[in-house]
């Protein structure tokens, strides 16, 4: 942690402080996040709002995925739930951190932290913990709204919930890392929203969040398959949609192994980008 040349002059800092400070950052960041009204609205409540809009708009429409005899099928609220959960994972990580960290770069927060003995890793821990806390809260709220407001029946099998847990955690962590990497892109805190929002909005449209993925043209499905959101949404569909819906996926199956592989790949790409692009300040601006 200290350079060898200054080891004699600078007394070493206690071991374990990186983790201890990271935990302290989680509390600090989470508190500050929920006091910021606009991000709570646009990131935290947005998927819940969108689910409500779709559920209400299609409330009189026919069920989706009915059997040839007219039985079975699910409501539109049930159909949209997995997409909204996936969107929430993406927004909490990529949109939230992409804008938040670019803003902190612009307003001097990072400069102050960079002049203090806070380890970069503790800072990242704080951001990820904050995102995880808000994403979990968001998912619980989404599930409650779906279950009790729109009468969506939730899975009861424990293995479905295990799938939910790993897809969710893996997806949120990947989103966080990509958000941190993306925060290097905007040239100023003010332009961050303009840079980040179109990217996540476009991804949501092509990845099966708002539009039925199986009805998109094949080439667009292929483009979307490069990005992680499509796989997050697919993972969530495997949890919340009936088994019969797997046939509508491009390969005719949920492909959970691929879901994990693509998210893992993006996690690694994100980590590498963070390693090379994150700086407390641009030294020569």
């Amino acid at each position, binding site marked *: 942690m*200290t350079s060898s*040349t*200054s080891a004699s*002059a*600078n007394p070493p*800092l206690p071991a374990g402080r990186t983790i201890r400070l990271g935990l302290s950052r989680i509390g600090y960041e989470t508190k500050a*996040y929920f006091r910021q009204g606009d991000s709570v609205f646009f990131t935290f409540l947005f998927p819940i709002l969108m689910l409500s809009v779709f559920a209400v708009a299609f409330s009189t429409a026919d069920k989706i995925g009915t059997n040839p005899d007219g039985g079975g099928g699910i409501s539109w609220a049930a159909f949209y739930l997995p997409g909204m959960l996936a969107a929430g994972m993406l927004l909490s990580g990529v949109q939230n951190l992409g804008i938040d960290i670019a803003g902190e770069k612009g307003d001097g927060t990072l400069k102050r932290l960079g002049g203090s003995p806070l380890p970069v890793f503790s800072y990242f821990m704080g951001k990820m913990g904050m995102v995880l806390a808000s994403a979990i809260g968001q998912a619980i709220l989404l599930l409650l709204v779906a279950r009790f407001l729109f009468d969506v029946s939730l899975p009861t099998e424990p293995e479905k919930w295990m799938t939910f847990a790993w897809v969710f955690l893996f997806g949120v962590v990947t989103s966080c890392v990509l958000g941190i990497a993306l925060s290097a892109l905007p040239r100023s805190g003010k332009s961050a929203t303009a840079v980040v929002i179109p990217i996540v909005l476009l991804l949501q449209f092509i990845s099966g969040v708002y539009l039925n993925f199986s009805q998109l043209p094949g080439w667009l499905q292929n483009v979307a398959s490069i990005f992680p959101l499509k796989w997050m949404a697919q993972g969530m569909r495997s949890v919340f949609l009936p088994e019969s819906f797997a046939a509508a996926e491009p390969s005719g199956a949920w492909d959970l192994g691929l879901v994990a592989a693509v998210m893992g790949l993006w996690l690694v790409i994100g980590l590498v980008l963070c390693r090379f692009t994150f700086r407390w300040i641009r030294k*020569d601006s």
Partner: protein
Amino acid sequence: MTDSDPAVIVRELRKSYGGFTAVDGISFEIQRGETFALLGPNGAGKSTTIEILEGYRDRSSGEATVLGTDPERGGLAWKARLGIVLQNTGEAGNVTVREQLSHFARFYPNPRPVDEIIAAVGLEAKETTLIRKLSGGQRRRVDVALGLIGRPELLFLDEPTTGFDPEARRSFWELIRGLKDDGTTILLTTHYLDEAAQLGDRAGVIAAGRLIDIGRIDEIGGAEARVPIVRWRTGGTLHEERTHEPATLVARLVSESGGEPDSIEIVRPSLEDVYLRLVGDAAAAATADLAAEAAR
């Protein structure tokens, strides 16, 4: 390194951005426990110099040693010994004064008690207020508090009292004097020359990236710059004379005019007067250089 080594050593420090040279070969030292004021007009290179020493910017050439460490390679343990009050801050401030200070206190191995710091900057009444709801001067006091919380050996103060009312400035000076008594080394930049005179032991004056003078506060500009000025009026005309013997001059004026001279005053140039002259001379010299270059 030992405690008698200077806290800061700067030799032939240079920083250029593209074709523009912001700092052009500056050298100085700051002894332990000393308060050194860096003075100069906007854009003279003060902040660039201080940010190189804080580790925020890399120098183009020259040497810099801060608490025995090259700031370009300063690690966390080195940063834990510094206190930095930056010139501009504009954070979102969604935490209270107390939350912010308690949080930052954890970063340091031996922080000052949060209560003590809040009292020292006079924010007791505001400790549970969100920082974004504070006035500009109050936020500045939080900045100062954050600079002090880690009990720094070396404190950087970049225009610390901007936005303070006169009373807050006085109490800030008291606070800094207390730190000086505790042995804290301080590097201060300020636009308020009275502040530099109140707090500084020595000062350096920077203009256009060069150090044009350095010395004890009461010796800056040389003895000649501090020669008293006698001013008086005769029949509406203002007279001014610089003299080492002002009382003799006044006595002569009294005997010549046979009474009290009109609007008489004896003025000893303040640090501000001396400074303005130094900087003005440097600007005139720079302009002359440019003109000579253009003529060539």
